[in-house]
């Protein structure tokens, strides 16, 4: 890290009193605790209870209202299930499409521009259309999630196929490898890395799509409860519900990131 030019550090070093700073993990933890404490203090002292509730009450609402009530729990589980189905469908659709588009120079040149054209459309604009066609139930949310999750995988698989190092292909061929061997030993390993990178992005996007649709449909599911809590000015369960979903998002991101790391380690 080169742009560390702060005078304070320089001064401290000059005085020979180089106090060791907190390890970053502890510093992050300290910031988090300080923010929570500040929030608690502010909410108790000055906050309007219709808008701000202290973190302790959010935790209370988490166990008392969110996790204890069957309807809310089911809405969260349903969202999780929709996400899983949407992600699986996105992978199942995008992988073959990506392989076909990236397979030859001709398909790449003729089909990839179409993929990019569709990718450039802001997809929220068609959210009402999706709900109109697929209905208010899980189908609409899954379909919208799939529409978000497909593109990162297609683009990454195509990039992986088109960016195979020609040097490797040529040397494999000159050592007598046949077509199948080249595909198995040279092309596939190159594709797998970018495929996993696409998976990670796709998970983020699928989650975005499912949540957008969930929030848009306010007659059932998570959208119903967020609207209910906002309209009744009951922020504690609203914060708790959002926290649960955010933790879910973090856990899923971490899982896919781990899978990506493992795949790259496996490739060497």
């Amino acid at each position, binding site marked *: 890290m080169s742009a560390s030019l702060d005078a304070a550090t320089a001064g401290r070093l000059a005085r020979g009193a180089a106090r060791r700073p907190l390890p970053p993990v502890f510093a*992050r933890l300290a910031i988090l605790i300080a923010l929570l404490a500040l929030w608690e203090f502010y909410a108790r002292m000055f906050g309007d209870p219709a808008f701000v509730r202290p973190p302790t009450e959010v935790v209370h609402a988490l166990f008392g209202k969110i996790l204890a009530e069957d309807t809310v729990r089911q809405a969260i589980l349903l969202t999780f299930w929709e996400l899983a189905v949407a992600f699986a469908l996105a992978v199942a659709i995008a992988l073959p499409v990506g392989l076909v588009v990236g397979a030859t120079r001709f398909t790449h040149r003729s089909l990839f*521009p179409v993929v990019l054209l569709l990718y450039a459309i*802001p997809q929220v*604009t068609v959210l009402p259309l999706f709900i109109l066609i697929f209905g208010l139930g899980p189908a609409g949310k899954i379909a919208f999630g799939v529409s978000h999750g497909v593109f990162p995988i297609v683009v990454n698989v195509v990039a992986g196929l088109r960016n195979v190092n020609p040097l490797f292909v040529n040397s494999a061929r000159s050592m007598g490898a046949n077509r199948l061997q080249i595909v198995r030993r040279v092309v596939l390993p190159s594709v797998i890395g970018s495929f996993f990178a696409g998976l990670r992005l796709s998970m*983020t996007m699928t989650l975005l799509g499912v949540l*957008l649709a969930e929030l848009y449909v306010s007659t059932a599911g998570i959208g119903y409860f967020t609207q209910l809590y906002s309209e009744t000015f009951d*922020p504690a369960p609203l914060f708790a519900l*959002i926290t649960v979903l955010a933790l879910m*998002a973090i856990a899923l991101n971490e899982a896919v990131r781990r899978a990506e790391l493992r795949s790259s380690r496996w490739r060497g």
Partner: protein
Amino acid sequence: MAATTAREILGTRAIQAGFIAGGMALWYYATDVAGVSHLFLPKIGSVYRELSELIVKGAVLAPLRVTLTSVAISYFIAAVGGIGAGYLVARSAYLVRVLEPVFAGMFAIPITLFFPLFVLYFGIGAESKIAYGAAYAFFPIALNTIAGFGNVERRLIDSARSMGASDAQLFRRVLLPAAFPVILTGLRIGFFICFASVLGGETLLSRTGLGHQIAYAAELMESARMYAWIVLVIVISTSLNALVSRIETYQQRWQQ
């Protein structure tokens, strides 16, 4: 894209135009021949009538102004905040190690989750969409600013220092030019995230703006009008896309 010749770009455009023409033909076939429900897919003619009516009567102007103003304010906040925060963090290697993972982690969470909070605090009007868009676009801009300033070659800084550059000179002559392309990438990503977020916020809960018009038409089951608004938004976003890539080309030429 090392070898994108004019001919290849022309070919790409031709393929995209052909795809659109094919899609229109399929659309015509589905509605006028195969008889798909007008609720899901209205006839091209009725969408065209709605679209021209919206434009002729000037009904586009008010929502368009709301959305574009929101995007502009939101993006300005995100750009100033993101570059400012990114620069402050990037000044210290320690802060980068502490805060960079925090920003990256926050960026991985869909901020859409927090949209109900934005509505709670900023109301149903344009303010909540501005705040939501700014919060979404802040992270890519801040992360790229940190990356841009953080990865300036040590060699460049040392040689400027040894030639007696002051802090201000170092910033203007070395740090800023070196970090600029990376920051610009962040600004570009941030812009499209900002635009999509404002539209998304309007679609979710709003009383004005382009996103609201689409959602409202869908609610009334006025499919033709909904398609007309969707076409409008796609045209606008495509033009914005073209504008940004034009700016980028100029910047690259200027940098060389």
